[in-house]
């Protein structure tokens, strides 16, 4: 009897091991597919940027040519300039490291803001974070992005700036946005304090409570910045 139950347990264990190995192989394949997809998106966005620059340069060259043209040439050049060649808004999201690209792209996709990204990080340091640490980073980044988007969306020319840089010990993500609001500076980050018409006033509070992330708030020349600092080794 005992031998039979041991045998059944052994078979069960073997089946579990086989399933685990299969899941691991599938996971690795998916990871490679995702990386390939992200690389393709990066290339596509870089291509859009080059195309935009090319279109702008051509337009300037055509304008310069007008001064050398006869009337027929002038008419032709004007026709070309006035042709509808839409410039696709490209907010250089491809510059973001893969680790946070998904979240930021999802938040900013199709937003008609100027989004300026300056990435000084080497490679994708977020890959080295443990799941728990990475989740904390994503939580704080998501809240900061939501706040930035809500604050600037009613501006005539809204913009969001994302700077990524590092020193020997830490990574930094700095998010800036323009805004038009009244702020009680000493209450920023207090529980339930909000400058928005809706919301619970818990976002910035939860960032401040997060023991893995240090935050710094600055307002310079009517631009609001929050800098999230995360240690490289936790």
């Amino acid at each position: 009897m005992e031998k039979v139950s041991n045998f059944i347990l052994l078979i069960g264990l073997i089946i579990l091991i086989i399933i685990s190995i299969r899941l691991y192989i599938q996971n690795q394949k998916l990871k490679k597919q995702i990386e390939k997809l992200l690389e393709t998106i990066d290339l596509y966005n870089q291509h859009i940027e080059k195309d935009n620059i090319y279109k702008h340069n051509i337009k300037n060259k055509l304008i310069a040519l007008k001064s050398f043209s006869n009337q027929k040439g002038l008419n032709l050049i004007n026709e070309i300039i006035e042709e509808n060649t839409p410039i696709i808004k490209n907010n250089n999201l491809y510059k973001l490291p893969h680790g946070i690209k998904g979240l930021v792209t999802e938040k900013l996709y199709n937003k008609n803001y100027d989004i300026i990204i300056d990435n000084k990080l080497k490679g994708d340091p977020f890959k080295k974070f443990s799941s728990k640490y990475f989740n904390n980073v994503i939580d704080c980044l998501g809240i900061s992005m939501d706040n930035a988007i809500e604050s600037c969306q009613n501006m005539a020319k809204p913009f969001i700036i994302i700077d990524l840089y590092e020193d020997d010990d830490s990574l930094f993500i700095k998010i800036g946005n323009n805004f038009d609001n009244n702020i009680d500076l000493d209450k920023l980050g207090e529980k339930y304090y909000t400058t928005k018409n809706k919301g619970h006033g818990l976002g910035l509070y939860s960032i401040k409570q997060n023991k893995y992330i240090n935050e710094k708030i600055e307002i310079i020349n009517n631009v609001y910045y929050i800098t999230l600092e995360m240690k490289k080794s936790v």
Partner: protein
Amino acid sequence: MIKIVVVEDNKNTQMEIKTILRDTEIVRNEDVIIEYYSKFCPELKSVIKNIDERKIYILDIELSTQTSGLDIAKYIRKSDWDSEIIFLTSHEKMFEATYRSVHEIYDFIEKFHNMKERLQKAVNDIFKRKYDNKMFKFSCRHYNIQIFYHSINYIYRDKEERKIIIVTNHNNYALNLSLTDVMDYLDDRFKLVHRACIVNFDHVEALNWAKGYFVLDNGEKIYMLSRKFKKELEVIYGKSK
């Protein structure tokens, strides 16, 4: 004395800028030093760190080095909001409005489109205009705030919140400071006109002592004007306002 600092890695463009500046009358006539760099080097860093000198930076936004013109502008603005920055660019200026707003860029000039005229005009205008990039700066454990003096309209004390409110055209900021304390952070264009109000006199259009209000250049009428300060202010500003 004004220092013009040019950062351009293309030798031909650098020569062109030299010629343009040499042909600019105001640069010839005024007390001006011009320095040329092709990259962000230690010598350039120490020039930037010296904020005692008034400077005009002419930066190639697309330097083909690790540090771009934009990185240099960011580095400048860490400590110096007084100097003016002009960007030179090879193509249409994407995000121009944002860069102007964030880094207080004076102008973006395309290298291949009227560069001589645009650069000379920009330099002339900078020399002639009133230099006013001083800032209100305050920092504490929780935040750091910097606002140009010229964008502050007035500051008043909110009795209920027991805080001061800095009023600009777009935003109001509440801080835990007294009016007396905040005067230490301001220059002499700011005057106490009421026990609970300081106003930036560069923005005042009119004072009505009889009815107790002042009118700003944005049309706002503020009822915080006390006769107690009339004599003192009339000595400074006369009765013209």
